[in-house]
C-alpha cells in the first residue's frame, strides 16, 4: 500500500488532492489569524476557505499524478530517474488514465475528455431549448437558466472546442512533420491533465451555494464581481484551461519550428501545421489577458480590490476591453485549426493540390495580425469612447478578406479534381464551406456599427456564433475526427452511420440556428429564460430542430465507440493521402518512425507525375535502384 502511494498514480493523486486542499484551508486560517481577521467568517461572495483550496487541491492532484516528479527532482538537485519510456505509449487501456508522455496517447486523452464535456454541455443545451420551447417558465427557474447557458458556453469553449483542436493536432502534427514526439513531452502531459481539472471546476460550480456561475461566459463586471461563490469556480477554471492552452501552444511552436523532418521547409509544411503555428501564436499572446482579467475579478471578489468597483475608482468598461482582447482572438483560436483540417480533407478527397497554397498560409498570418485589432466590435453599444467604433469596424470588415481567400481557395481546389464524397469527413468539409460562409456573412453585418447597434445582444448574435462555432468549428472537428479516426484507432468507422450523423447534423444546425437570426432581429434579446409570446412558434420550431441535432450526436457516439472496438482493420493510408502521418501504420508505432523521414516536396502534389512529399525509412534502398526518378517539387 505504501508503495502504491509513493508511486505516481491515482492513489497518490487523490491523496495529493486532499493534502493540497487541507494546505489551502490551513493557509487561509493562518493568514487570517495573522491579519487579525475572524478565522471562519466568510464574506458574502469571497469564501476564501473554499477558493484557496480550489487552487491548491488541483495542484496537489497534479503533483500526485506525477506531473511534476521529474522537474521537482531536477529542481532540488536529486538524481533524476533515467528515462526508461515506461510512461511513454499505451500498452493497454489503463495507460490512457495515467500521466503519459506519448503525444498519441495525449491526443486520445484530449479528444475523449473534450468529447465528454461536449456531450455534457450538449445536454445543457437540450435543457435550455426545452425551457425555451414555450414562453413562460416550465422546466428551470430563471436563476438556474442563467447558470445553464453560462456553463454550456464555458464548457463548449474552454474544455471542448479549444482543447479538442489541441488534441487532434497533438496526435497528428508530430507525425505530419516527421517528429518522434512533441518537443516537451512532460509539459504536454501536464497540459492535458490541467484540462479535466478545469472542466470539473466548471461543472463543480453547480454544487456551490448560490448555484453555478450565472454571469454568462463573458462574466461581465460588476455582475460577476458581486455574484455568489460559483463565479470563483469559473475564474479558477479559466486559469487551468488557460495555462493548459498556453503550455500546449508553446509546445506546438517549439515543435513546429525545431522538429520538422529534414527537407520540410516552411513552404513544404501541410496547412494543418501552418494553422496550428498561427493558432499557437495567438494563444501565447492573447490567453494571458483572460487569465489576468479573471484574476482581477477574483481579487475584487475575495481580496476586495477595486479593479471594477465603480464606487471606488474602478472602471467597469475596462473589464470588457481586457476580456475581448483575448476573447476575440479566441474565436480565431477556435477556427484556424479547423481551417487546417479542412485543407487536408479537401485536398486529399478532391485529389488535387491546394489552390494557392502560399496565399492560404499568408491568409492565416493575415487573420492573426488583424484579429488583435478588432476586439472592440463586441463593445459598439457598451458605452466606450465612441471614436474607437469606426476604426474597429473597418478592421473587422477587412478580416473577412483573408477568410474569403480561404473559402475561394478551397472551392478552387475542387475544380479539375476528382472529388470523392464517400468519406463522412469530406461531407463535413464541404458542408462547412457553406455554413461557414453564412456565419461569415452575418459576421460582416455585425461588424457594421449601425446594424450591430440594433442586433447586439439579441438572438441574431446567438445565431451568428452558433453558425461559426457549430456550423464552423464543430463541423471541422467532426471532419477531423472522421478523417484521422482510422489513423488513431487502426479501425474504420461505419460510413453509413457517418452519413446519418452528417445529414442529421446539417439539417439540425440549419433548422436550429437559421430562424434565430430572425427572432433576434425582430426583437428577442438573448440570455432570457422567458420571452414575448409572439416568438413562441419560432422557438418551438427551433427547439424541435435542436432536439434532432442533439439526438443525432448519439449516432456519432455509437459509431465511434463501436467502430473503435469492432470496426474493420484500417490500412496505413486508407484515403491515399500524401502527408507523412499516412505513410506509417494505423495506429502508428509507439515511437512513430524507425528512422526520421526525408521530405522532398510539397504536401499536396496530387496528379504531379513522380512527385513525392516524403521518403520514408527503408525506401532509401529503393530510390537507388533504377526506377522513375523521384522529382521533388519546390
Amino acid at each position, binding site marked *: 500500500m505504501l508503495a502504491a502511494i509513493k508511486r505516481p498514480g491515482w492513489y497518490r493523486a487523490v491523496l495529493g488532492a486532499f493534502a493540497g486542499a487541507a494546505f489551502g484551508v490551513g493557509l487561509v486560517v493562518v493568514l487570517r489569524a495573522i491579519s487579525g481577521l475572524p478565522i471562519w467568517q466568510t464574506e458574502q461572495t469571497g469564501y476564501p476557505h473554499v477558493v484557496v483550496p480550489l487552487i491548491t487541491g488541483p495542484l496537489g492532484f497534479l503533483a500526485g499524478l506525477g506531473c511534476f516528479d521529474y522537474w521537482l527532482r531536477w529542481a532540488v538537485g536529486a538524481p533524476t530517474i533515467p528515462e526508461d519510456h515506461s510512461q511513454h505509449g499505451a500498452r493497454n487501456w489503463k495507460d490512457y488514465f495515467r500521466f503519459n508522455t506519448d503525444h498519441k496517447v495525449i491526443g486520445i486523452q484530449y479528444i475523449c475528455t473534450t468529447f465528454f464535456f461536449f456531450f455534457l454541455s450538449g445536454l445543457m443545451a437540450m435543457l435550455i431549448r426545452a425551457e425555451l420551447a414555450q414562453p413562460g417558465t416550465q422546466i428551470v*427557474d430563471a*436563476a438556474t437558466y*442563467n447558470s445553464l447557458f453560462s456553463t454550456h458556453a464555458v464548457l463548449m469553449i474552454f474544455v471542448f472546442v479549444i482543447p479538442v483542436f489541441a488534441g487532434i493536432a497533438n496526435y497528428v502534427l508530430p507525425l505530419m512533420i516527421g517528429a518522434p514526439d512533441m518537443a516537451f513531452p512532460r509539459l504536454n502531459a501536464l497540459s492535458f491533465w490541467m484540462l479535466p481539472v478545469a472542466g470539473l471546476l466548471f461543472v463543480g460550480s453547480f454544487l456551490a451555494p448560490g448555484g453555478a456561475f450565472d454571469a454568462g461566459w463573458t462574466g*461581465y463586471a*460588476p*455582475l460577476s464581481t458581486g455574484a455568489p461563490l460559483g463565479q470563483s469556480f469559473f475564474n479558477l477554471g479559466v486559469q487551468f484551461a488557460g495555462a493548459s492552452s498556453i503550455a500546449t501552444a508553446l509546445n506546438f511552436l517549439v515543435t513546429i519550428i525545431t522538429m520538422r523532418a529534414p527537407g520540410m521547409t516552411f513552404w513544404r509544411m501541410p496547412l494543418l501545421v501552418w494553422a496550428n503555428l498561427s493558432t499557437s501564436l495567438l494563444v501565447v499572446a492573447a490567453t494571458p489577458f483572460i487569465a489576468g482579467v479573471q484574476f482581477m475579478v477574483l481579487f475584487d471578489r475575495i481580496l476586495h480590490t477595486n479593479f471594477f468597483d*465603480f464606487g471606488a475608482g474602478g*472602471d*467597469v*468598461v475596462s473589464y470588457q476591453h481586457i476580456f475581448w482582447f483575448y476573447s476575440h482572438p479566441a474565436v480565431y483560436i477556435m477556427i484556424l485549426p479547423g481551417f487546417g483540417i479542412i485543407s487536408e480533407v479537401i485536398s486529399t478527397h*478532391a*485529389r*488535387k*493540390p491546394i489552390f*494557392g*497554397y*502560399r*496565399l492560404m498560409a499568408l491568409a492565416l498570418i493575415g487573420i492573426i495580425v488583424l484579429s488583435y485589432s478588432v476586439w472592440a466590435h463586441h463593445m459598439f453599444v*457598451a*458605452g*466606450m469612447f*465612441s471614436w474607437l*467604433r469606426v476604426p474597429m469596424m*473597418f478592421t473587422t*470588415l477587412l478580416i*473577412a*478578406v483573408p477568410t*474569403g*481567400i480561404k473559402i475561394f*481557395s478551397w*472551392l*478552387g481546389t475542387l*475544380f*479539375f*479534381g*476528382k*472529388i470523392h464524397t464517400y468519406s463522412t469527413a469530406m461531407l463535413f468539409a464541404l458542408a462547412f*464551406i*457553406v455554413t461557414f*460562409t453564412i456565419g461569415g*456573412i452575418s459576421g460582416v*453585418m455585425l461588424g*457594421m*456599427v*449601425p*446594424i450591430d*447597434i*440594433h442586433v*447586439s*445582444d*439579441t438572438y441574431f448574435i446567438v445565431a451568428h456564433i452558433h453558425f461559426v462555432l457549430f456550423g464552423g468549428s464543430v463541423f471541422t472537428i467532426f471532419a477531423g475526427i472522421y478523417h484521422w479516426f482510422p489513423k488513431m484507432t487502426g479501425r474504420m468507422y461505419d460510413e453509413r452511420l457517418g452519413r446519418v450523423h452528417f445529414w442529421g447534423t446539417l439539417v439540425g444546425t440549419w433548422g436550429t440556428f437559421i430562424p434565430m437570426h*430572425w427572432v433576434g*432581429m425582430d*426583437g428577442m434579446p438573448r440570455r*432570457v429564460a422567458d420571452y414575448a409570446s409572439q416568438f413562441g412558434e419560432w422557438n418551438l420550431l427551433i427547439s424541435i430542430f435542436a432536439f434532432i441535432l442533439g439526438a443525432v450526436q448519439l449516432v456519432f457516439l455509437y459509431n465511434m465507440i463501436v467502430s473503435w472496438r469492432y470496426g474493420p482493420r484500417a490500412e496505413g493510408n486508407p484515403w*491515399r493521402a500524401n502527408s507523412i502521418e499516412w505513410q506509417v501504420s494505423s495506429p502508428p508505432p509507439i515511437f512513430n518512425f524507425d528512422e526520421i523521414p526525408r521530405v522532398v516536396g510539397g504536401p499536396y*502534389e*496530387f*496528379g504531379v507525375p513522380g*512527385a513525392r512529399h516524403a521518403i520514408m525509412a527503408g525506401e532509401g534502398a529503393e530510390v537507388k535502384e533504377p526506377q522513375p526518378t523521384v522529382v521533388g517539387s519546390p
Partner: protein
Amino acid sequence: MLAAPMYGRLPIVKMLLVTLAGTAAISAVMLSINWDGQEGSTAAPKIDDLLNVMIVLSSFVFSLVMVMLFYALWKFKAKPGDESDGEPIHGNTRLEIAWTLIPTIIVLFGGAYSWKVLNDIEDKGSNPMTIDVFSQQYAWSFGYPGKGMKFIEGEMHVPVDRTIQFKMHSQDVIHSFWVPEWRIKKDNVPGITTTAIVTPNKVGTYQLICTELCGFGHASMRAKVVVESPEKFEKWVTGLKKEIPDEFIKSIEQDTETNPSEPLDAGGA
C-alpha cells in the same frame, strides 16, 4: 478573360449568369421579409436600408460560393472506381488577386456606407430634449430634467418627431436600453453616463427591453414606452407627481461622461 488556359474550359459566363440569377432570387425572397419589424424612428429606415443593401451583396457572395461548389461537385465528381488524381493545378495568381481585391472593395464600401449611416443616426440636431434613464436590477425609471425634474417608474412617454437625447445611468450592474422599433441600443453602465440619440416618428406603444444580462430578473426587465403627440406629452409630463429622487441626482453628478468633449447637458429642452 482569365489567363490560364484551364479556365477557358469553364463555362464562366454561364456560371456568372446563374450566380446573378441566384442573387436576384435570394435577394427577392430576403427583401420581401420585414426582418427588423416595425420602424418607429428616423434611424430605423436608414439602418434597414443598410441591411437590405448588405443582403443583396451577401446574396451575391453566397450564390457565387454555391454555384462554384455545386458546379465543381457536378462536373468533377470522381466516377466510382476512378483512382486517378486531379489535374496538378497549384493556383492562379490573377484569380487569387481577384478574390482578394473584390471582397476588399465590397467590405470597404459597406464600411463607408455604415460610417455615413452612423453619423446620420447619431446627429443630435439643434434642440434635443434630454431624458434621464435610470436602471437597476430589475426596473427602469425615467427623469425629465427639462420638465421640472419630473420622474416616473416603469413607463416612459416621449413626444413624436422630436430628437431625444437619452442620458443613461445604472445603479448596480450593466443594463442595456433597447427599443427594437427604434433600432437603438445602449448599455447603461454603472459609474459613467452613456448617451443615445433617437427621433421617434410613429405614435404608438412600444416596449423597452433590457438586453444586457443583469441577473435572474433580466428577462422580465421591461418598461412601457409611449410615443404621443407633443400636446398629449406636455399634459402627461406636467401631470407627473414625483421628482427625480436625490440618490439618482447623486448618481448623475458622480457619473463621468463617456464623451467629455460634449457639453454637460443638464437642462435639455
